[in-house]
């Protein structure tokens, strides 16, 4: 399988990326900027509300918030066509909202109510929507990588032009089955984009303490899978990389790795005090690289929106989240008979 035979949207031989180089950030139209703003804000406000409901005891167990990483799923979603699949691990609320799963359904699943997407039986880490091509929501670190490769296998089997977006973190990138999957995906040229959300910490272990190769875009080298590092805090950069990657996969070139350099503002889960990093580090990311503030600044600067108009968007988003939270707090728990349903067909 010669690299030269691959159809590469952008080529540069000298960068060690097997012929690919990161594209320039996409030029967004006013509509795209506004849509990105709204979608990212929905995730941010939703997660803040989830954190609050957790604090009030409405949400139990583990709850991993996506705050800070919103640009990754939002930009990638903008590159998809109907039927493209998404699968991820346990930090999954943002992915679901990006795939247009109902905020009520997600929030009610978090509170374990019957109106939840899994009828209250999955919880924060286990939600799915066949209709929206969202394949979970998986609690075992790395397992979703083989599953996402299987989704791509199905696309290839059906020759349907769809792509599997398989997300995992810098922590999961050290699991063995990730590389088993890389090997098969490359061998069989499966249409899968491996999106490594590098938020710098696998729970409390920094990338430099866990990974011999900290450039995750190189992790496919042994399998002839090219990779790119992408500014995962800039939704335009993510969108451009998503366009390149989906085009690469649809052209039959096989898998591609996108390392999204991102950051989570909150702890690993609600009960993580995040003592492994400094407050200054978090504050610097928030004040200098916040994905939502970046879009907001551009909208204002280009006079595509006024502060007041953006406040209106904020209000509308808050209303959606408040409605979801209200529903999730008041919806009934699953009927006891649900204990025995959905177990074998």
């Amino acid at each position, binding site marked *: 399988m010669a690299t030269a035979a691959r159809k590469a949207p952008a080529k540069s031989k000298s960068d060690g990326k097997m012929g690919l180089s990161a594209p320039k950030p996409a030029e967004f139209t006013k509509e795209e900027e506004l849509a990105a703003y709204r979608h990212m804000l929905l995730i941010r406000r939703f997660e803040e509300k989830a954190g609050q409901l957790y604090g*009030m005891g409405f949400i139990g167990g583990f709850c991993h918030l996506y705050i800070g990483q919103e640009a990754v799923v939002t930009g990638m979603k903008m590159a998809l066509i109907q039927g493209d699949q998404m699968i991820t691990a346990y930090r999954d609320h943002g992915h679901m909202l990006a795939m247009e799963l109902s905020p009520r359904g997600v929030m009610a699943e978090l509170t374990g109510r019957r109106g939840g997407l899994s009828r209250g039986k999955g919880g924060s880490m286990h939600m799915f929507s066949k209709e929206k091509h969202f394949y979970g929501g998986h609690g075992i670190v790395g397992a979703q990588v*083989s599953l996402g490769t299987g989704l791509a296998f199905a696309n290839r089997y059906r020759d349907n032009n769809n792509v599997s977006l398989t997300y995992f973190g810098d922590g999961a990138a050290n699991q063995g089955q990730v590389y088993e999957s890389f090997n098969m995906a490359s061998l069989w040229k499966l249409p899968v984009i491996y999106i490594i959300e590098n938020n710098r910490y696998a729970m409390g272990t920094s990338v430099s303490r866990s990974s011999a190769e900290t450039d995750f875009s190189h992790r496919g080298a042994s399998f002839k899978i090219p990779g790119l590092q992408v500014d995962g805090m800039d939704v335009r950069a993510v969108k451009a990389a998503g366009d390149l990657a989906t085009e690469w996969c649809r052209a039959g070139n096989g898998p591609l790795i996108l390392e999204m350099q991102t950051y989570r503002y909150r702890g690993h889960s609600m009960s993580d*005090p995040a003592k492994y990093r400094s407050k200054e580090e978090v504050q610097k990311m928030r004040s200098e690289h916040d994905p939502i503030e970046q879009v907001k600044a551009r909208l204002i600067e280009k006079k595509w929106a006024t502060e007041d108009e953006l406040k209106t968007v904020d209000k509308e988003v808050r209303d959606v989240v408040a409605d979801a939270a209200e529903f999730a707090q008041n919806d009934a728990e699953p009927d006891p008979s649900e204990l025995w349903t959905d*177990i074998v*067909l």
Partner: protein
Amino acid sequence: MPIEILMPALSPTMEEGNLSKWLKNEGDKVVAGDVIAEIETDKATMEVEAVDEGTLAKIVVPAGTEGVKVNAVIAVLAVDGEDVDKAGEGIGEEPPKAETAAPAPAAAKSEASAPVAAAPKTEIAADPDVPAGTEMVSTTVREALRDAMAEEMRRDGDVFVMGEEVAEYQGAYKITQGLLQEFGPRRVVDTPITEHGFAGVGVGAAMAGLKPIVEFMTFNFAMQAIDQIINSAAKTLYMSGGQMGAPIVFRGPNGAAARVAAQHSQCYAAWYSHIPGLKVVMPYTAADAKGLLKAAIRDPNPVIFLENEILYGHSFDVPKLDDFVLPIGKARIHKTGKDVTIVSFGIGMTYAVKAESELRGMGIDAEIIDLRTIRPLDLDTVVASVKKTNRLIVVEEGYPQSSVGDHIANQVSQRAFDFLDAPVITIAGKDVPMPYAANLEKLALPNVGEVIEAVKAVTYR
């Protein structure tokens, strides 16, 4: 309305904490995401972030307060346009409210302490009638398994086989012989040696609606993949509220073969039978292998199909029918009898069958039940037989502790205690890893003599 900021629970088990520090003062503006306070939980010091935007109107619980209950009001936030001075009025004079939120509806508690309704019973159809005069063809288990896959692949384009050496090599044990030639490399897929990975790929393909048959060269290697089998394949239907399951068959040889020693000789029937969401099939005859594998491929649930290398070459009559499908979850009475019930499955049946013919010579009329399916387990057939014979022996090759036989003994003691004239005896492999030496290997497995001795014991001969 001013917004009440509550003492948050920051771990699944936290009930109270100490409010160690305020990072904002009364009168300060806050926006969502601002850290406003630090609290100490039983585990760590945590930051409290604001969720809403406004002005901190009143701090109700001062810094340094210990034992603040979760959900107590700790501060009040005035939102835009509200009078900051008035926002906090009347709050904090009474003791902090602990019951602002009611996360668990009251009904849930009484449910938890009440008896839980039993699982609804699923009726499983009996075996289909084989019309009189149907030609019976002597077939090896190997050929029967191959025929089952080929028939189902002809029937349904979504069915494919993947595994190590299944295509060009024609199968490590020749179970997939000829499939590549008939169906091509798209549907008969050689994988690298990568069990964890290809099991996951198979489950992912199944979630997307394909119907994979994943062959493990032996089930010993499937331990590398057991997370995907259990956490991904078995649990997803339930976790997704019924939206998405995994119609997949994991099949391959299981249990001891001959002289392959500890790491290649282990029966997984009891392991997989422990898992809700899986079906577990372990046939003995070629007809059952064929009819049940066809059923497994059509089943919308993940099915573990446990074969046996030694049985592959055994021949049995298989009815020559266009579409011979057997029900999963139904035991087969291999031979009727009245004095004792011998329950077994898979290769365990060979001991039961040989023992039965010797017992006949002693004047003991044994009934033999071949479970065929380990999950769902057909206890009704076993219990009905015990009610007739009043004695039960279970034979299997797996390890003795928490064995399939243990489970059956437990269930029979609950459902037919008064019918038992003797304790249930479970015969299993010995409680050691499989040794290599020929004599020790033989000792580690069950034998016909053990079955006969057990029958004599329960019939008081």
